[in-house]
């Protein structure tokens, strides 16, 4: 059981470049999330999705876009990378709408540096 899989693990981008962080889960979870984590800080929600075709903004959505064409996949796109987007990105998923913590599964993280 792979759980939540993110790619790439590490990436260096130049300012103004675009890229997509891929996230897939094989647990048939309806809910998926993208968080970012800055050094020494907690996670902040960028975008989330409650099901295929439905996405919504979290706390820090500016500079990002998402799509949810399938239940399994929830890619995060950076259109014009900025140094402020240097961070660690975590994708997560959960199986119900009650925010039950022990059903929120996190990926291993994607380290992104914008130079």
């Amino acid at each position, binding site marked *: 059981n792979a759980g*939540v899989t993110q790619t790439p693990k590490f990436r260096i981008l130049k300012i103004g470049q675009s890229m997509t962080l891929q996230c897939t889960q094989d647990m048939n979870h309806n*809910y998926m*999330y993208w*968080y970012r984590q800055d050094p*020494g*800080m*907690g*996670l*902040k*929600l960028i975008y*989330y*999705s*409650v099901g295929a075709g439905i996405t*919504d903004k*979290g*706390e820090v959505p500016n500079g990002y876009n998402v799509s949810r064409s399938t239940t399994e996949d929830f890619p995060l796109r950076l259109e014009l990378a900025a140094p402020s987007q240097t961070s660690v990105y*975590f994708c*997560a998923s*959960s199986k*119900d*709408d*009650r*925010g*039950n*913590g*022990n059903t*929120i599964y*996190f*990926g*291993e*993280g994607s380290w992104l540096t914008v130079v």
Partner: protein
Amino acid sequence: GESVGLHLPTLSVQEGDNSIINCAYSNSASDYFIWYKQESGKGPQFIIDIRSNMDKRQGQRVTVLLNKTVKHLSLQIAATQPGDSAVYFCAEGVIYNQGGKLIFGQGTELSVKP
């Protein structure tokens, strides 16, 4: 605004001692609280949760205490081991909030000395 924060950014304990990690929250509508452990280079790992209709919950070597009067949450780790060294985050949420979104605190780094 709403926030979840930790009182201590770092905590160093001796192996075998008990550890207490504290957290303050400000959103009185939050009814669900979770502690996560994050090891270096990995994603957050669920430890224990508690709902607002409880003031204490115990797991294996861990206990979470919730004081709604002062909006305070704590994680107690008994007989701390070197494998407990990690960053610990508290997170708050509303159980029936669509999407189950969580707000995370800053984190406390726990260092266990052998």
